[in-house]
């Protein structure tokens, strides 16, 4: 009997793995997810929320590309929040709290619905490559696959810390998997260790909610999934609560500095500065004696509450002590203690923009193992790796997202072109073309990429319709000029505006005091044109930001051409026209493009001028 050879095998069933397997299976390939026994698929082991500033845009981009996360988040959401509502449409985002149990079940159901996708629960011990990848499992069985996507999260060489107690593991109550070097014997080695952490979980029945500030759900938030009705909620909505850790709690932490693994040297991995543990906050901001703590319910079917803001790896009794100093948590019962996890990550500079190893054909990496943080970042990478593994199975051109067209593009480009010394998270500040990378136009931005898959699913039909509608509205926006005779009624409609005589609709949309969406909706309806809110939103904001985007685009173009210019570091490193010091740096950093070269510290202008001028 000949053994099954999978087209694509995904190692790990987190958000990256689920997303990779999902999109790969759309291409009618034989796909397998190999996941550790007793580790849930698509779990949310840290805070039970999806979306956020920048991240929310990623979820919508994924959704428009045909990804899983947006739809799953909607199905499992128990609270919606609109972020940056007052800051302008470009940076407005959505975040939802999900029921973590429902989320896992929904993803599992979706994946099981694919007949060509198999979920294998086995621990992998070794990976080799001959003609195909051979994945050796703990029970000595072997899985063969043409392509392999590694999405192992924090599991590679994972080590948990809770005070003095250290244990091998990928997360609480889970085994870890082998380290990079033992898993990929003769293929890869790592050496980079990152660290992340999570707070203790509290029994909701032990919390005194009466004295806490309530954060209700935003009913006006639009669903992530573009095909669903914008305000449809599947699960009943609930609230989060806000409290603070004060002086007394922080004092307890400060008294236990030497018992903290991140301060006593027990942990060597580097944690993210944007997601500090409560120990970090206590010691790095000695003058601040209060920090927010958000209490987020994890699930309707669990009693656990996630206290956001107090991630810690202090010993359990210290955790208990400081938690009980927090107003509302005086009687708190801890159901699971907080801990830190250290894990192997790979150097992503060995990957290309399709997330495949440059050296090893068919081997992809995605998610936290690439040194990122966040479910959304992981999912996005999983999708890119999955889609590219599938596309390359058909010898099709890879899916490469431009960083000026998507946050996912920014993420991937940053990952494969730069070296980082802490876990990577997306911020809108990282995107040069931020005004264009909005929630409202995600479908518009992703449609050209999606259409190249050559699939004809519901989402493809939706994208085409959306594009058509946009073209139509844009005709309205640009053709209409108000006549003198309409001035009076215009003045009534826009009392705040001066000079509405003979004004173009496009001009009204760009005025800072008016809400572009409301203006466009009203003017269209006045003419008897009724279009979906999503389409109005997209068209109105596209017009509002068009001038700024154009200006920024000119700026980007100026740099882009030169920055993209390919260079040959080996040749430059031996070039006698370049100073010795610059050659040393070129040798060390091996820049592949002019842009990378220019970012290296200590590279002299003369070198840049010389290189810019070279035909390489």
């Amino acid at each position, binding site marked *: 009997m000949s053994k099954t050879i999978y087209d694509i095998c995904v190692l790990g069933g987190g958000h990256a793995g689920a997303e990779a397997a999902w999109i790969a299976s759309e291409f009618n390939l034989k796909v397998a997810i190999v996941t550790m026994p007793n580790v849930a698929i698509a779990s949310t082991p840290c805070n039970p929320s999806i979306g956020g500033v920048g991240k929310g845009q990623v979820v919508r981009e994924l959704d428009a590309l045909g990804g899983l996360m947006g739809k799953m988040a909607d199905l499992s959401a128990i609270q919606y929040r609109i972020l940056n509502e007052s*800051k302008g449409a470009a940076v407005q985002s959505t975040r939802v709290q999900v029921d973590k149990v429902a989320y896992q079940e929904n993803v599992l159901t979706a994946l099981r619905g694919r007949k060509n996708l198999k979920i294998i629960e086995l621990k992998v011990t070794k990976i080799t490559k001959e003609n195909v990848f051979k994945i050796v499992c703990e029970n000595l069985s072997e899985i063969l696959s043409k392509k392999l996507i590694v999405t192992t999260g924090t599991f590679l060489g994972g080590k948990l810390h809770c005070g003095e107690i250290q244990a091998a593991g990928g997360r609480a109550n889970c085994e870890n998997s082998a380290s990079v070097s033992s898993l990929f014997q003769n293929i890869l080695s790592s050496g980079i260790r990152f660290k992340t952490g999570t707070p203790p979980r509290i029994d909701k029945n032990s919390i005194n909610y009466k004295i806490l500030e309530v954060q209700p759900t935003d009913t006006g938030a639009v669903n992530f999934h573009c095909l669903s009705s914008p305000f449809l909620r599947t699960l009943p909505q609930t609230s989060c609560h806000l409290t603070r850790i004060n002086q007394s709690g922080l004092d307890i932490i400060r008294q236990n500095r030497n018992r903290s693994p991140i301060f006593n040297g027990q942990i060597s991995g580097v944690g993210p500065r944007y997601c500090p543990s409560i120990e970090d906050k206590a010691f790095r901001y000695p003058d601040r004696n209060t920090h927010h703590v958000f209490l987020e319910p994890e699930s309707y079917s669990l009693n656990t509450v996630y206290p956001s803001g107090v991630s810690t790896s202090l010993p359990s009794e210290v955790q208990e002590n400081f938690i009980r100093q927090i107003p509302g948590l005086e009687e708190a019962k801890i159901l699971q203690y907080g801990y830190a996890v250290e894990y192997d990550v790979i150097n992503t500079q060995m990957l290309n923009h399709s997330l495949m190893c440059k050296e090893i054909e068919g081997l992809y990496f995605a998610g936290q193992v690439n040194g990122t943080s966040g479910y959304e970042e992981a999912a996005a990478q999983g999708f890119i790796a999955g889609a590219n593994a599938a596309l390359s199975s058909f010898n099709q051109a890879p899916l490469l997202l431009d960083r000026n067209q998507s946050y996912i593009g920014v993420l991937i480009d940053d990952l494969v072109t730069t070296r980082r010394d802490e876990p990577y998270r997306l911020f809108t500040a990282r995107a040069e073309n931020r005004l264009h990378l909005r929630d409202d136009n995600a479908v518009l931005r992703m449609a050209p990429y999606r259409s190249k898959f050559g699939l004809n699913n519901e989402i493809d039909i939706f994208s085409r319709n959306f594009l058509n509608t946009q073209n139509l509205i844009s005709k309205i926006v640009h053709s209409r000029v108000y006549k003198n005779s309409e001035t009076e009624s215009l003045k009534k409609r826009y009392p705040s505006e001066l000079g509405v005589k003979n004004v173009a609709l496009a001009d009204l949309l760009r005025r800072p005091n008016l809400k572009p969406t409301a203006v466009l909706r009203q003017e269209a309806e006045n003419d008897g044109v009724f279009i979906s809110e999503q389409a109005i939103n997209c068209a109105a904001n596209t017009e509002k930001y068009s001038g700024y985007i154009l200006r920024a685009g000119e700026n980007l173009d100026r740099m882009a051409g030169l920055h993209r210019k390919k260079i040959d570091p080996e040749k430059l490193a031996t070039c006698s026209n370049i100073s010795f010091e610059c050659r040393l740096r070129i040798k060390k950093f091996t820049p592949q493009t002019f842009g990378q070269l220019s970012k290296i510290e200590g590279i002299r202008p003369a070198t840049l001028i010389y290189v810019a001028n070279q035909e390489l």
Partner: protein
Amino acid sequence: MNDYRPAIIASSSSVAGVGAIAVLRISGDLNFNNFQKFFKVNLSKIEERYCYYTKILDGSSVLDEILLVFFKGPRSFTGEDVLEIHAHGNRLNIKNILDLFIKNGACRMAKKGEFAHRAFLNKKISLIQAEGLERIINAKTPLALSSGMSLLSGKLNQQYTELFKLFLKLKSALELGIDFLEDVGEEGHHKILSEALFQLGFAIKKLHQQAKHFNKELLSPHVAVFGIPNAGKSSFFNCVLGSDRSIVSDIPGTTRDYISEYLEFDSTTVMLLDTAGVRQSSDLIENFGIKKTLALYEKSLFRVLVVNPFDKDFFITTNPLINMEFDLIVFSHCEDIFSTDPFLPFVELLKGERFVFCSFKENGKMGPVSLQTEVGPIGPVFKKYEGPIAPLLKKFSGPIGPLAKNLAGPIGPLSCLNPVQVSKDQLILSSGPIGPGCNLLQILEKIVLYKIGQVSPDGVVAERHVSVIEQLFFEWNIFLDKTSKQSDIAILLSDLVLVEETIAELVGQIASEDVLNNIFDNFCIGK
């Protein structure tokens, strides 16, 4: 902002002041009718790539005798028409010729790197890429860090550093409102943003006012005097200034902080700094002063070392001054040079461009006074190779061998590097070492101006600073106006780019990574 219209540009392509011949270039779409009046030769009759001997004319007077070569575009360095003028390499002469063209409106002064820029433009890379390249180059060498930096006074230097910090603060404050609003809260953000706006606005306004009114003062290079305690730094300082500005005493370590005075040299203002003596000390205040002194060394354009060649304390290996380079080394206490053996083997280690021997003893003045007597400490000595200070020279070959080891030929006490390259008017002293009538102030003036000429020909640097600051002030006011009308924070950040581009010319590009780092360092981010 950047003017890329093909204006006709001119500049000296040689480093001013060193060579006997300097090459000036004029590049652009040249209309010879506009240039004919400056040249004796008939320009319409010259052939490309031929060399013509002719004269530069300012009206009826002859400015210089030159060689002229014409390169017709695109067969030239820039790809445009280029006139190359080989003139006499005296700084004043070059300036006069360039001024002649520019003041008559025939062309404008080229910006730094503009010739190379045009070469790119016309041959190698596209316009858009050339602009990108200039951005990158500007970011690598913003005005605040460029070679002209040593020309800036400490005050302006400080203001640039401040400007960078405050801009980073403003950008961080705006970004904070997008990515981290939940962490700082709406109210907290408003406070941070208003403060940042106010502070940067204030700094830009101040800079602008000063650039307008105190241009000269802002661009006054530092001339700093260094030495170990009691070497005679303050005496030197006072001698140059002609007043008792520094407290002079026999107790080492009298000058603990530095003392400064402005000096007018020709049309240039320099700041003369008397520094605290460098030595190991247990006195806290003094140690602090020493740290400051070493920082001043980095910042100064012109560095003077005052050393008593008989002071054993100076010649110890832990003295940092021994390994540092100086533009002028003043040997004080030379009145005793006949009787005592100076520490010559160590003197040999000193690194200086020029040297002067003098004594502060007689009437509290240096060189000039003592030199008026026939048997002054130095003067006559150097006319023959033996005499009062013979012991100093005996062990070495050449007249003042140890001090001028790298130099060829016998040079006076005020020696010049490479006398071969130095034309007559650049030699510090053409007749006699420190002849009568030549006082220390004049010596200093000559050599300081010479150095400034090397660093910044024709004051181009000063003009660039002022014009960028003007531009910044302009952009800032436009931006400020927008902050009151625009509530969309992402649009505001997009508008801020225009301010940022101008600031980048002064202090360098600010990467998004810098902003994020600044945020993480200063705010508690993360739920």
